């Protein structure tokens, strides 16, 4: 696999706030990544630095092997669709698309027109007059039709209804299959996108706490339920993210893979084993202070 993004020790300091703290990761060619985390975790700051819209305080960024700053060779390969993209006041939808067409060498005008139809966007409409959802659709169309080798969507669907979001996912997968490229999706709607993601990066309080293949994460944690007297001994020596007692009954969430012997032991003890979805896992890991330490909730 070819590495197209290499980030080492990336840090962004704003006065007394460390927005991004010593983050290192790589992105490979032709993969779909999820960049996940809570609001204010530092996701957008990372994306801004990747796309040369913000300076790093320290650390090194290479995109397609080069520094992205004022590097048109690199920047023409990156399409960054922002949550709150602004356009000049006089712009109509077609003007925004024309500018994008001139920026991205792989721009597919026919595809862009097809997308305009699908999202029912009037091309001559002034962008200022678009609804929030329609404005998001403009960003999505640009992101898809640019076919940029690195395409980043940062919460691209504010105001888009479930039908339009579903359409976005379908179009993204379809076009990605036909024209493979690296895609980064940053979103809160983890359950909606988790199946499309090949690899997941989770940022919490400026730090990268998960950098793992999605399929590995699916068997990364489990929930155990049963009589507390039987659950407790099982938890010994394991990484527990949540304990929820109910009388003499207890539910606990545990990180770490289950061995076959564990599974048989749990079954023999009459304990219930339940899987943990990606969204639940990330909620548990980013819920409180210690990102991966035992969480003493309640």
């Amino acid at each position: 696999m070819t590495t197209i993004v290499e980030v080492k020790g990336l840090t962004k300091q704003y006065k007394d706030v460390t927005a991004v703290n010593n983050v290192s990761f790589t992105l490979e060619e032709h993969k779909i990544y999820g960049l996940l985390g809570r609001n204010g975790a530092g996701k957008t700051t990372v994306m801004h630095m990747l796309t040369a819209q913000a300076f790093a305080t320290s650390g090194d960024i290479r995109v397609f092997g080069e520094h992205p700053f004022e590097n048109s060779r690199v920047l023409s390969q990156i399409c960054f669709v922002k949550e709150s993209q602004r356009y000049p006041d006089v712009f109509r939808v077609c003007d925004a698309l024309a500018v994008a067409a001139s920026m991205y060498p792989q721009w597919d005008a026919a595809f862009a027109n097809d997308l305009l139809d699908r999202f029912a966007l009037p091309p001559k409409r002034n962008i200022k007059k678009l609804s929030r959802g329609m404005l998001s659709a403009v960003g999505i169309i640009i992101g898809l039709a640019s076919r940029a080798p690195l395409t980043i969507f940062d919460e691209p669907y504010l105001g888009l209804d479930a039908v339009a979001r579903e359409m976005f996912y379908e179009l993204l997968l379809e076009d990605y299959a036909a024209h493979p490229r690296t895609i980064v999706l940053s979103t809160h709607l983890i359950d909606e996108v988790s199946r499309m993601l090949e690899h997941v990066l989770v940022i919490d309080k400026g730090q990268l706490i998960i950098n793992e293949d999605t399929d590995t994460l699916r068997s990364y944690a489990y929930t155990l339920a049963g009589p507390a007297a039987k659950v407790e001994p099982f938890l010994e020596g394991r990484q527990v993210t949540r304990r929820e007692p109910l009388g003499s009954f207890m539910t606990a969430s545990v990180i770490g893979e289950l061995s076959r012997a564990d599974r048989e032991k749990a079954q023999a003890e009459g304990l219930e084993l339940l899987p943990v979805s990606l969204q639940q896992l990330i909620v548990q890991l980013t819920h409180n202070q210690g990102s991966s330490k035992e969480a003493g909730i309640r």
Partner: protein
Amino acid sequence: MSSLINDDRPIFAQIAERIENDIIDDVLPEESQVPSTNQFAAYYKINPATAAKGVNLLVDQGILYKKRGIGMFVAEGARSRLLEARKEQFYEQYIISMLSEAQKLGITEAQLTQMIKRGAMLK
């Protein structure tokens, strides 16, 4: 999203299992062509790489094989081999857990045999 796939287990394993089921049910007879990974991806709305991982799992096991430039096909003898493996799984998944539940309820082996016979009559 398609409810055929759930988010609890690795998706590639679920894709492999669905293909296995189709082979066992003869929906995908031996020597027939399996849909492409992109077709799986579009159908289940999953990442094509994940679909490929599921397909490759079966290639590694010799259940599917690749015809260069054409696609994936079901190997000869795949069905009988899958049935063998599934019988072993059946023992572990159903028989073992049935016995432990029976023990919990105080059901004797004789009573269990009786119940199986009663169930079989309904079939």
